[in-house]
């Protein structure tokens, strides 16, 4: 390369730089219709039935629509469905789709697509599995009508089809929905308000969604997953940022527009910035938890589990997580999400009032605990579990227990917690996690409350009383019956210590002030969101 070539190159670079300087004015309109969003986690895959992570569901809600959608009052509302009929005996449901629904490839949404989608969903979702067990037939009657015939009534049908916990009953074209539910789809065609730009997807870094011009929104006002999903943006870019400090700087700098969940430590900095709004993101928050393994000593004895509950302080857990910000947490003498219709504190006395360490020690001794190591799994790469684990280690030591503190990563905890072997042979005694509050509003999506022994979630709690009340809730015919069933459930689950709730906590979301229309909810909703230049 000679001197002249270098100079030409530099001049070209200068020209490009100058053109870059002029770009904002020219591209202002386009920029205002593009929202740059930092999600809670990396969108590593994009099949909302195969992978049930919240981040996948959140992205999927843009691309795939549902037959019903839960609104902000937690009620399922019609979404793709125009009408439904149920026979008097409650066993035959006939649904009619709205007219004009189209997939992103231009094909109309037909009943056969719905039947295939519901079949795939029902193979993976707990409520879907219940429906599948009751199913006599699920068939397309005509292009816009389909029928679901059950062996016995399932009163929670509409909730199942519209719920927001993973996996949601998203509707895909038949050719995609016919994929084995345990294999991942590779074609991301939906009928939702945005199309997935597969060509621009860099897993772990960026995912792009473009407005679907042919989407037909409902006429009602949007409310969570229900109502008119009016897209005011042309393009939504999800930018994955593993480092919270970088995300905070990028938001302050205007390089991103909305950060889904800033960590509590950085919130004061964001609040000081006059261009940034900060508010609670999801009013349904999260329920902190640690699970004790029912299969092996000491926690196979209910007295040992109760001793832990008697001694634990939820405030310690919450302070470790959110610091001094009292607006971010509540004590939770139960299992269900506060400020939701079924919330109850029935039987919650054990978690209230002054902690009684001496009584707990006495009860632990009665359980026969004699100093054997208690294997406590803690994922150190998750701030929430790390904070909880540190508090638990201290708690167990105060109780006089011999703690085998296994500090590791989430991948290892996830794998090891599935081991049913004794703690000394690769198993465990306890692990920490948390549950989205939207999953704890009733027993349907609440995997962690189930206590059917070997079939239950990790920890394999066995509490026939709890299971009986779960069934009572499913059979309840009205809200009063539901409330009564859940109150009984809460009491018995606390008595048997299905798991230990460590408190209810919220987190913030933050956005630039030129963005408007952001609503609080269990997932980020982009409909109704707009951005000014």
């Amino acid at each position, binding site marked *: 390369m000679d001197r002249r070539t270098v100079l030409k190159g530099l001049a070209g670079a200068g020209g490009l730089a100058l053109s870059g300087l002029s770009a904002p004015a020219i591209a202002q309109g386009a920029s205002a219709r593009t929202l740059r969003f930092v999600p809670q986690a990396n969108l590593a895959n994009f099949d909302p039935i195969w992978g049930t992570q919240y981040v996948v569901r959140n992205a999927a809600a843009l691309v795939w629509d549902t037959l019903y959608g839960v609104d902000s009052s937690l009620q399922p509302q019609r979404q793709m469905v125009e009408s439904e009929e149920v026979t008097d005996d409650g066993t035959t449901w006939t649904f009619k789709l709205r007219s004009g629904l189209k997939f992103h490839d231009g094909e109309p949404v037909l009943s056969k697509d719905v039947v295939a989608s519901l079949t795939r969903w029902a193979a993976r979702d707990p409520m879907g599995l219940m429906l599948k067990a009751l199913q006599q037939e699920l068939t397309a009657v005509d292009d816009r009508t389909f029928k679901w015939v059950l062996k016995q009534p399932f009163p929670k049908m509409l909730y199942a089809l519209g719920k927001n916990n993973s996996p949601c009953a998203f509707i895909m074209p038949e050719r995609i929905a016919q994929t084995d539910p*345990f294999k991942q789809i590779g074609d991301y065609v939906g009928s939702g308000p945005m199309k997935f730009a597969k060509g621009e997807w860099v897993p772990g870094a960026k995912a792009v969604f473009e407005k679907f011009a042919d989407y037909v929104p409902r006429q009602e006002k949007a409310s969570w997953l229900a109502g008119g999903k009016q897209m005011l943006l042309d393009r939504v870019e999800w930018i994955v940022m593993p480092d919270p400090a970088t995300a905070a700087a990028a938001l302050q700098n205007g390089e991103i527009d909305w950060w889904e969940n800033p960590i509590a430590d950085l919130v004061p900095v964001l609040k000081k910035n006059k261009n940034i709004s900060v508010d609670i993101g999801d009013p349904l928050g999260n329920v902190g938890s640690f699970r004790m393994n029912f299969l092996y000593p000491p926690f196979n004895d209910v007295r040992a589990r109760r001793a832990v509950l008697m001694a634990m302080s939820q405030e310690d857990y919450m302070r470790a997580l959110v610091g001094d910000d009292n607006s971010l947490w509540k004590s939770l003498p139960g299992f269900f999400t506060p400020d939701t219709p079924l919330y109850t504190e029935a039987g919650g006395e054990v978690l209230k009032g002054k902690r009684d360490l001496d009584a707990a020690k006495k009860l632990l001794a009665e359980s026969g605990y004699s100093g054997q190591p208690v294997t406590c799994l803690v994922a150190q790469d998750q701030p929430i579990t790390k904070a909880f684990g540190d508090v638990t280690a201290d708690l167990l030591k105060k109780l006089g227990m011999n703690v085998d503190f296994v500090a590791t990563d989430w991948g290892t905890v996830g794998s090891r917690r599935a081991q049913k072997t004794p703690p000394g042979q690769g198993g465990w005694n306890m692990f920490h996690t948390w549950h989205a509050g939207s999953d704890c509003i009733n027993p349907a999506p609440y995997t962690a409350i189930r206590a059917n022994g070997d079939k239950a979630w990790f920890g394999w709690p066995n509490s026939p009383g709890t299971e009986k009340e779960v069934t009572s809730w499913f059979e309840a015919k009205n809200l009063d019956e539901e409330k009564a069933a859940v109150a009984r459930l809460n009491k018995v689950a606390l008595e048997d210590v299905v798991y230990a709730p460590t408190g209810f906590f919220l987190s913030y979301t933050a956005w630039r002030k030129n963005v408007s229309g952001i609503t609080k909810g269990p997932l980020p909703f982009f409909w109704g969101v707009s951005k000014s230049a």
Partner: protein
Amino acid sequence: MLSYILRRIASTLPVMAIVALFVFSLLYIAPGDPAVVIAGDQASPDDVERIRQSLGLDRPFLIQFGSWVWRILHGDLGTSIFTNLPVSTMIGQRLGPTLSLMMVTLLLTIVVAVPLGVLAAWKAGSLIDRAIMAFAVFGFSLPVFVVGYVLAYVFALELEWLPVQGYTPLAQGVWPWLQNLILPAIALGCVYIALIARITRATMLEVLQQDYIRTARAKGLGQGGILFVHALKNAAVPIVTVIGIGIALLIGGAVVTESVFAIPGLGRLTIDAILRRDYPVIQGIVLLFSFVYVLVNLMIDVIYTLVDPRIRY
């Protein structure tokens, strides 16, 4: 020389095979299960097992390894467990940002570190020398992420000169490409500038005491000619070696830098893949990195012969 280069490239194949076997075995025995991560926190043990089966993770070690080797021999790095995308596509997506970062860092390092080292050697014992060496110690001691945060705060947040994060491909213009790389390159380059400046100074000091330098001075050659024509060329072999080692080390440093500046490069892909236990991606990246290491060593050997004609293979 050509036959030497070909032999060296051929010799990389068994090295890569051994590395691959080692990595595959290590992952196999390491705790963690991608099926658990895929299934999500609320999944039942049965769901996890079904996913394991569908991904073939329940098959014996030798079958999994054999099938992987077979695919590699057919030029197929496999498919990511998580994204369902070919590993080669994922690596291809991430290669540009990492190569760009390494290239700019390397350029910056050489342009800054070598003159600093020469200057320090020339002014040995002076205030300038001490200042340069103090800077070197400082640069060497600061962790990349600390330098990164400080740079981002000053130049992005306060002065608003440069962006905090991201990557723009070169195809969209030199300046847009460069402006995303300046801060990360400085953050990543600090430690290498310090290292290479010190090595340059030390080797230059040694060379400057040689008889032929004295002769050059006696002949009345200017200081610039002595330093850059006679001394630097003869001091180049150790400097080139350190730069070569630096390239290899840059790959490691890029992991942190890419996270701090949200650059979608191979470093971040590696960390993500390890945390998720995305075995095919990890294996593909390790193979690539092994190849890069071997290639860098080969290039250093070739450069030796150019800077010192006495070296022959």
